[in-house]
C-alpha cells in the first residue's frame, strides 16, 4: 500500500534538475501566467532550505531585491519550474540558513565550495 503511494510520488520526480545543495545560489526559471500570455521569470538567490521528499519537495530561495529581502518557495517538481541553474555553489554547515535573514551585505556572504 505504502509502496503504491511512493510509486506515484516517484513518478512525478523530474530528473532534469542539476544537483545542488543548501547554500548554493540558484537561478530558477519559473513560468508565470499573465492573462493569456505565459512568460518565464528568473528568480536568482541563495537556497536557504529544502523541505519534503519525492514529488512534494520544495526549495526556499532568498534574494535581496532593491535592498528588501525576498523569499520564494518553489515546488521543485512543478511543471511550472522550467529549469534550474546553479549560479554558484556555496559552503555552509547547516541545513537551513535562516540566520541569513538577520544579516545584511558583507556578513550575508557564503563561502564558495571547491
Amino acid at each position: 500500500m505504502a509502496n503504491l503511494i511512493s510509486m506515484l510520488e516517484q513518478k512525478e520526480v523530474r530528473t532534469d534538475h542539476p544537483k545542488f545543495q543548501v547554500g548554493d545560489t540558484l537561478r530558477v526559471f519559473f513560468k508565470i501566467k499573465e492573462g493569456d500570455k505565459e512568460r518565464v521569470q528568473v528568480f536568482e538567490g541563495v537556497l536557504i532550505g529544502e523541505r519534503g521528499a519525492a514529488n512534494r519537495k520544495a526549495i526556499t530561495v532568498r534574494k535581496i531585491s532593491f535592498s528588501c529581502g525576498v523569499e520564494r518557495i518553489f515546488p521543485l517538481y512543478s511543471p511550472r519550474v522550467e529549469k534550474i541553474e546553479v549560479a554558484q555553489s556555496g559552503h555552509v554547515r547547516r541545513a537551513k540558513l535562516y540566520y541569513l535573514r538577520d544579516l545584511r551585505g558583507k556578513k550575508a556572504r557564503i563561502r564558495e565550495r571547491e
Partner: protein
Amino acid sequence: MKMGLMATKVGMTQVFLDDGVRVPVTVLKLEPNVVVSKKVSEKDGYTALQLGTGMIRQSLVNKAKKGLFAKANTEPRRHLREFRVDPAKMDTHELGSQIGLELLEGVTSLDVSGISKGKGFAGVMKRHNFAGFPGSHGTHEYFRHGGSIGMRAKPGKVLKGKRMAGQMGNETVTVQNLRVIRVMPEENLVLLRGAVPGSKGKIVEIYPSTRKPKALPGVGGQALEEGSKNPMKASKAGSKGKPAAAAAPKKK
C-alpha cells in the same frame, strides 16, 4: 442510485496537473469486482447485484459461502456488498463476470462511502466543535463542558437531538462529488481530489456522482460557467463569483 463498486483506500498524496496546479488526492485501488450473485424481484423482492472483491483463504470460508461462490464459478472473495441495479440493466452483467474501471468511463466525479475512523467516546468540543469555557477568569473544573442543556420547568426535559458527548466516528460516511483526477488502468488506481472516509487499507464504495462536477482550477468543470439561478441569493452570488474569479486569470 447508480451502481457502485468496491475499492480499497490506499492513502493520500499530491499530484501536479499539467499547468502546475497541485492537487491533494486520495488513491483508491480498484481490484476487479466479481458478480457473485443476483437478487431478482420475483425471488428477493428487489433487484441488485452482489459483488465480491479481495482474496480469502479457503479455510476461512464457511459452507454457505462456498456454495454461493461455486454457483458463480469464482474463487471466494473476502468482501461482499450488494448494489441496487435497475431491473432492466440486470442482464448487462453475467454471473461470475468481472467489473472494473470500465464502469467509471466518462465519469468526472464520484461519491465515496466508507466507515469513518473511530474516535471513541468523544466530548462535545471534539464531537460538535463546542467552544468550551475560558481557560482562566475563575473557570473551575468546567473547561471542556458543553454548558446548559435546556430550560427550566417548561419544557422540563432535554430537547431531542441535543448535541452531547458520545461515540464519534466509526459510522458510515458518504463524501459526495469527489473529482476524478486520474485513472490508471494498468495499476487499477483511481486518484480522487480530496479526502475519503476511513483508514488506509479499508474498503470503500464508489458511485458515479449524482452531483454536478465542481469547478476546479486546472481541471475545469461544468460548474465553472454556471452560477445560481437566483440572483437575489447573496450566498450564491459569492459562490458564483469565486469560480469565475478563479477562472478569470486563465481565460483572459
